[in-house]
C-alpha cells in the first residue's frame, strides 16, 4: 500500500472527468505527487536528526523541535494530497451505483452511465467544491502553523528543560522554502482549475 494506490484511484477518475478535470489529474500526478515522492520526501527525511540546538542539555532539542514543528511540513503535504484526491471517489461511486441500477433493472436507464448530467452532475459539482475547500483549508493551516511559508534558519527556544533561551538551527531551510512555495503554487493552480471546471459545468 503506497502512493501507487492513489495513482490507480486517480486513473479511474480520469475516465469520467471533463477536459479540465483531466488537466487537474495530470497536474496532481506530475507536479504534486511525483515531486513529493522524488524530491520533497528526501529533503525532510532526516529533519529531526539534523535539527541542532546550541546546548548539551538532554531533551532540549526534542522539546524545541516538537514546539516548532507540531506537524511536520511533509506530513501535512501528504495529508493534503490524500484529502484533495479523495472527493473524486464520490463520482466513481455514483457511476458504479448507476451501473448497478441498470444491471438490477435489466434495462438501459441512462443515455450513458458516465455522462455528467442530472444526479451525477450534482455529485461532480460537490466533489469539486470539496476539493477546493480542502485545498484552501490546508493552505490556511500551513500559513497559520508556520507563520507564512518561510522556513527560518534559526529559531530561539526556551521551553523546559532548556535552561535558557537557546538557538536551534533548522537543516536545509532554503530548499524547504523553495519546495513549500512550489506546493503553494501548485495548490493555487489546482484551485483555479477546480473553479474554472465548476463555472464551466454550471454555465454549460
Amino acid at each position, binding site marked *: 500500500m*503506497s*502512493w*501507487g494506490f*492513489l*495513482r490507480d484511484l486517480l486513473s479511474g477518475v480520469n475516465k469520467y472527468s471533463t*477536459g479540465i478535470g*483531466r*488537466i487537474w489529474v*495530470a497536474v496532481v*500526478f*506530475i*507536479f504534486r*505527487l*511525483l*515531486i513529493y*515522492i*522524488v*524530491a520533497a520526501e*528526501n*529533503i525532510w527525511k*532526516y529533519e529531526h536528526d*539534523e535539527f*541542532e*540546538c*546550541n*546546548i548539551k542539555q538532554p531533551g532540549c532539542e526534542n522539546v524545541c523541535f516538537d514546539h516548532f514543528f507540531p506537524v511536520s511540513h511533509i506530513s501535512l503535504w501528504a495529508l493534503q494530497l490524500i484529502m484533495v484526491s479523495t472527493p473524486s471517489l464520490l463520482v466513481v461511486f455514483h457511476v458504479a451505483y448507476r451501473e448497478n441500477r441498470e444491471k438490477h433493472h435489466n434495462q438501459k436507464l441512462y443515455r450513458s452511465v458516465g455522462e455528467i448530467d442530472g444526479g451525477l452532475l450534482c455529485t461532480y459539482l460537490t466533489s469539486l467544491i470539496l476539493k477546493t475547500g480542502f485545498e484552501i483549508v490546508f493552505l490556511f493551516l500551513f500559513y497559520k502553523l508556520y507563520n507564512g511559508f518561510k522556513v527560518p*534558519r*534559526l529559531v530561539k527556544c526556551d521551553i523546559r528543560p532548556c535552561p535558557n533561551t537557546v*538557538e*536551534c*538551527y*533548522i*537543516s*536545509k*531551510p*532554503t*530548499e524547504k522554502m*523553495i*519546495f513549500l512555495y512550489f506546493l503553494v503554487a501548485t495548490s493555487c493552480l489546482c484551485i483555479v482549475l477546480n473553479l474554472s471546471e465548476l463555472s464551466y459545468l454550471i454555465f454549460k
Partner: protein
Amino acid sequence: MDWGALHTILGGVNKHSTSIGKIWLTVLFIFRIMILVVAAERVWGDEQDDFVCNTLQPGCKNVCYDHFFPISHIRLWALQLIFVSTPALLVAMHVAYRRHEKKRQFRKGDQKCEYKDIEEIRKQRFRIEGSLWWTYTSSIFFRLVFEAVFMYAFYFMYDGFRMPRLMKCNAWPCPNTVDCFVSRPTEKTVFTIFMIAVSSICILLNVAELCYLLVKFFLRRSKKPVNPKHHPNHENKEETKQNEMNELISDSCQNTVIGFSS
C-alpha cells in the same frame, strides 16, 4: 509510484513523435532518469551527513550547508526532468482530443468518417500536421526553454559546474571563517558534467527536431498547389515504409527502456 509512472505517461506520446523525438525520449529515459535514479541518488545520498566543518559550534554546519547548497543538485535535476517531460503532455492531450472527436463522428454515423470501427480510431497514428503541428512545435519550444533555464540556474547557483573540495564559510553562528569539506566532490563533479553533457545533447536534438519540422512545413506549403487532392490521413508508399521503420525503432527502444525501468 515513481519515475516509472512518468514513463507510462510519456510512452503514449512516442507513437506520435518524429524519429528525432523518439531518440530524444530514449536519451531522456536512459541517460538522464535512469542515471539519476541508479547512480546520482546514491552519490548525493549522504550529502549533509558527510558535509563536515572544522568547528564544534552547533548550528554552524547547518547554516553553511544551507548557504552553499540552497537547493541540492539532485533535486534541481529531478525538477528539470519533470519540467522538460511535461510539454510532451500537450501533444498527448491534443491527440486524445482528436481521437475523441473522431469517435464522436463515428458514433454519429457520419458519412465522411473513413474508419471501420472504434478500435481502428484508437490505434490510429496521427500525422504531425495542421493544429497538431503547432502543438508539437510549441512543446519542443517549451522543452528548449526549460532546459536552457535550468542549465542557467545551475550555472548561476553553483558558479560553474565544478564541485569544490573545500568551502570557506563565515555565516553566523560560525565564530570565524571556518573550512567546510564537501563529501565526494570528484564523483559529484563527474556526474554534474555528465548530466550537463546529456542536457546539451537533448537541446541539440530538440533544435534539430524543430528545424526538421520547420523544413517539412515549408516544403509542404510549396508542394500544396501541385497536389490539391492530397488527403491529410492518407499515406503514400514511402511514408508508410518510413512509419513502419519508425514503429520498429520505437518498439525496440520501448522494450529496452521497459526492461530497465522495472
